[in-house]
């Protein structure tokens, strides 16, 4: 590792990161052409876990964050390209089938993280100090178009936003935010309907 890389200033590595992101579209196009999206490798999982440490609530703890990453990877694995999305009520047209797996767009983004980490003198993104990772994550999210809304489901456009959307739209996240066991979309008996949900942590 070059000494100069170790001391690359924040602006320089941010630029390198953004440049890597800008270079990604062509590679993304190639990825789209694949019928089967690549599975995330174990190194990618480590990167995801290091992202999760920054973007997910500390209440989850290390194990909780790992579980979210595992669930995210499983979601990606079970995604079905071309799946029927049916039709919406109030419209006479069919919805477009499910597009290519979001996973097809992740390798370039992950590679960009790693490239930037190496340019910072780190062996991997996960090896970067938390504050540096945070800055890189903020830069990535900051470059996203749109407002405050997290993606309802992973789209591939931004891996970090996808991971965040995946968790924060989950029933577990709603429970955490409300500090109550709402358990959205869970089936439960009618008895007790009139009661508020039990506090989080109660049996």
């Amino acid at each position, binding site marked *: 590792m070059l000494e100069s890389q170790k001391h690359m200033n924040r602006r320089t590595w941010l630029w390198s990161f953004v440049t890597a992101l800008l270079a990604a579209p062509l590679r993304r196009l190639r990825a789209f052409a694949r019928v089967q999206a690549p599975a995330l490798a174990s190194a990618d999982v480590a990167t995801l876990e290091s992202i999760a440490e*920054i*973007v*997910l*609530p*500390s*209440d989850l703890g290390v194990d909780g964050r790992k579980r979210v990453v595992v669930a995210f990877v499983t*979601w990606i694995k*079970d*995604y*079905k390209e071309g*799946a*029927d*999305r*049916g*039709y919406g*009520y*109030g*419209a*006479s*047209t*069919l919805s477009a089938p*499910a597009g290519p797996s979001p996973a097809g767009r992740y390798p370039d983004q992950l590679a960009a993280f790693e490239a930037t980490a190496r340019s910072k003198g780190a062996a991997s993104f996960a090896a970067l100090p938390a504050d540096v990772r*945070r800055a890189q*994550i*903020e830069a990535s*999210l*900051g470059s996203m178009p749109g*407002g*405050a*809304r*997290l993606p*309802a*489901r992973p789209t591939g456009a931004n891996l970090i*936003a996808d991971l*965040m959307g995946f968790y*924060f*739209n989950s*029933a577990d*996240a*709603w429970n*955490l*935010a*409300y*500090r*109550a066991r*709402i*358990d*959205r*979309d*869970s*089936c*439960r*008996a*009618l008895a007790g*309907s*009139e*009661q*508020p*949900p039990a506090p989080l942590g109660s049996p």
Partner: protein
Amino acid sequence: MARYEADVVVIGGGITAAMVAEKLAELRPSWSVIVVEAGKRVFDNEKRFEYRKRNLDYGEHIWPGDYITDQAARGVISRAMAVGGSALHWGGVCNRFSEEDTRLRSLYGLAVDWPIEWRDLEKFYCEAERRVGVSGEASPLPEDWRSEPYPMPAMPMTYNLLQIKSWGEQSGVKFWTTPQAKNTVAGYGGRNICLRCNTCEICPTGARYSPDWTFKRLLAEKKIQLHDQTLVRKLVLDDKTTRIAAAQAAREDGSDNDVEYRARTFVLASGYCWSPHLLLLSANSRFPAGLANSSDHVGRYMTGHLAYQTTIDVNLKLYPGMNEQHSLISRQFFRCRTDQPYVRHDLRLWESAGGRGPQLRDAAGKLLLGDELIADWRNRTTRGTVRVRGYFDVHPDKDSRLTLDSATKNRWGDALPAIRHQVDAATRSRDAQTREHFQTLFASLAKAGDGRMGGMNALNYQDHPGGGCRMGTDPATSVVNSFGRTHDHENLFVVGSPTIPTGGCTNGTLTFVALALRSTAEIAKN
């Protein structure tokens, strides 16, 4: 060519077809009944949890295979075409219309009166509620009298709805729970008790009525034949009379393009779109404008209702997501004094997660990660959101039409339908006053409950559509009589939604079913 004969052939496999078939099997057990449905049977109860999960997780279609790709209509609001029809997706809301809906001309000088006495129709509402299994609480308004209690106790109010009811009634408007075709008692109709799974459009536990329940039972008891994936393309007239002699059909899988059904009575139970469509497609030299269409009223007076809706930010701690499809209703505005500007509507309240979800940025635009995001989110959970909607009564113009679109055809070359709703001049003249009414009403709800009203928006399509074969006593201005018998063909009935002259101001399914049951009693007399 395959040929079938039956006493009654029912064309269509949705909720009204299910009701007709069930009631005929009871009233005339010796009659043979064939139900012919263009779409597939979706009888895979055991897969509903899986479908639901894929829909929740991936947004995949909740009822795979419940439509036909090239059997579409411009202006239709649901592509459902399967055994069960739109009622597969149905939320199960079972509101009744009110007497005013049937007496618009007499009471208000608007649109037309229905050729049915309310007291007569009310009996069939009770029957409809028994057959589909409705849980509900009676309206406290004496005008909403009913001759029988609901078959099942009302769905209990959730904690959220209890809060919302107290909040809403500060405005002086009374609210109660919306009746629903969902079991609050285990075993009613062979169905399970509701487990408030929050996804009523696909009820994974089988607590909500859908027509497949009825068809499966009738088939198991060998009461009917069900020919699915069979599209009826044309009704054929008897050579010497005006009776319908046959229905010509084709198998969707291409195995037989020449299926013929002969029957003493034909019942068109294909909904507001495909019923008038088939009549128009069946034009011949004696009825060049289409069967049952000597009045030129087939495909006219397409109706439904419109809505205004808003959300209100309220000072209530709500926990959205525990049975958020359950709602409150007020029928206070079903009536309109005759010396007041005309506006009639229902009023519904729901819990809502609107504005209460996670946000990537705070109000100032600052990016939020991890604990910051949760903290920002928690700040927004201290208050709640109430969704408010009112369906209001609009009346169709004669040129509110379903027509054949010769530019769009299915695989057999049949022109497909195009629907273009158009309200009548009187309705249009009320646009501004209707909007103002809702603006004032929603604002008063918000103000009384110390809430903050969001923007008000209008529904951009007519919901719970009907019409196209409207009923009436005058054959010159209607297609069918009050029993759904076509004026032109004594052995052809049209049942359910196509027959309604006006669309009311609340969910229509129970009314469509009640009318179909009334028709069935008449069909069974023949």
